[in-house]
């Protein structure tokens, strides 16, 4: 492999990485904002879960390229938004089931205790059920984040920005080192985001560490 392409293009790599971060992470945030209420509704009214889950799964089966083209041709034009909306829709098939599973595994005695000490439905949800569901929800966010970072490169070959543009350019001009740099940066980005999410989960669930400490 020839490496002389790299030193002169560090700026391009930095720009592409920053763009990629935006186009891959914003969808996860949006997806979570959509999934939380959908998951809460699915747990509260059980009959809503099969259709919600079915639609989320069907969205996931649409080839990403087709959705990117559809968005950039007919809806939001050739901009990063045309990548963000499809990627956000793709996260739902992972995030909604995890929100549901997380909420479902809250032990009944805990729920009853919260009610007994006078928590209303909303306060119980915010202060008891959601915090207990955090590990399962974060597990879903981790999968969605890595998938979004990896899938985000497809948006690049459609000219929507990010690390995928390195693949497109590297293929057309036959520069393997450019493609290789894109792959390494994508994996690195996924790895760093994953580590950060693990740390966030630890910060959000201090009790899980305290219990381990007490047992030791």
């Amino acid at each position, binding site marked *: 492999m020839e490496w002389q392409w790299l030193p002169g293009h560090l700026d391009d790599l930095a720009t592409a990485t920053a763009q990629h971060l935006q186009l891959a992470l914003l969808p996860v945030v949006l997806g979570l904002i959509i999934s939380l209420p959908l998951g809460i509704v699915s747990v509260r009214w059980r009959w809503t879960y099969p259709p919600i889950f079915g639609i989320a*799964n069907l969205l996931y089966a*649409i*080839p990403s390229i087709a959705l990117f083209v559809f968005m950039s041709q007919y809806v939001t034009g050739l901009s990063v938004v045309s990548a963000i909306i499809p990627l956000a829709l793709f996260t739902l098939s992972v995030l909604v089931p995890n929100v549901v599973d997380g909420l479902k595994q809250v032990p009944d005695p805990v729920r009853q205790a919260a009610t007994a000490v006078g928590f209303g439905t909303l306060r119980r949800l915010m202060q008891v059920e959601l915090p207990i569901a955090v590990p399962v929800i974060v597990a879903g966010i981790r999968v969605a984040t890595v998938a979004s970072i990896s899938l985000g490169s497809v948006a690049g070959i459609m000219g929507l920005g990010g690390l995928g543009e390195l693949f497109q350019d590297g293929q057309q001009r036959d520069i393997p080192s450019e493609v290789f740099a894109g792959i390494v940066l994508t994996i690195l980005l996924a790895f760093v985001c994953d580590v950060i999410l693990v740390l966030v989960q630890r910060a959000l669930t201090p009790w899980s560490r305290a219990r381990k400490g007490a047992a030791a």
Partner: protein
Amino acid sequence: MSGFLNFLLPWLTSPAQWSGQDGVPNRVSEHIFYTVLALAVAMLLALPAGMFTGHTGRGGFLAASLANFARALPTIGLLVIIVQGMGIGLVPPLIVLVALAIPPILINTYEGIRSVDAEMKDAARGVGMTGRQVLFRVELPAAMPLILLGLRTAAIQIVATATVAAYVGLGGLGRFIFDGLSRQDYQALAGGTVFAVLLALVVTLVFMLLRRLLVPRGVRLQEKA
């Protein structure tokens, strides 16, 4: 919805779409061929690995980390660099699709077998089963729902992603998508997409059927309870 149908109908009903190399039947069968081949290779690699790590409990962390790493691989980038290395052919897209399918199969098999009720395993050993018998007669049937779920996820991901084979000059439904894109023929693009989604629905149905055939009645009853 009816607007979309009106948009798509001329493409769907044109006779050119239904015969020859660039016809829907041929592209669908190419797509199914890539999917089945990739799923078979991924199963051959991931099922034994998941069964071994789940049964022995050894190497589970390594398997899960590798699978997570594989999830981060950018499909298109990987495909382009393999093609630059070894030229155009069936093998590069196959490698990419297999890499995509291994994580869900491996992790679900591992988790499914590992989380089989410990008392059930003890009972199996207690009646004199060997390790191999415990794995094949107890753990595998009990883990079947989770294993099938992993296989289904993998199959649906392959169906949606096999469209990239066309990016490096192969066939399949991706031909409609990429050719449609370069010729600005968005009807073809939408048509290819619709057939890819339909194929994913067929995959879902096939797995519902497999579930009926392969999950033992006892496990199904237990799940319902």
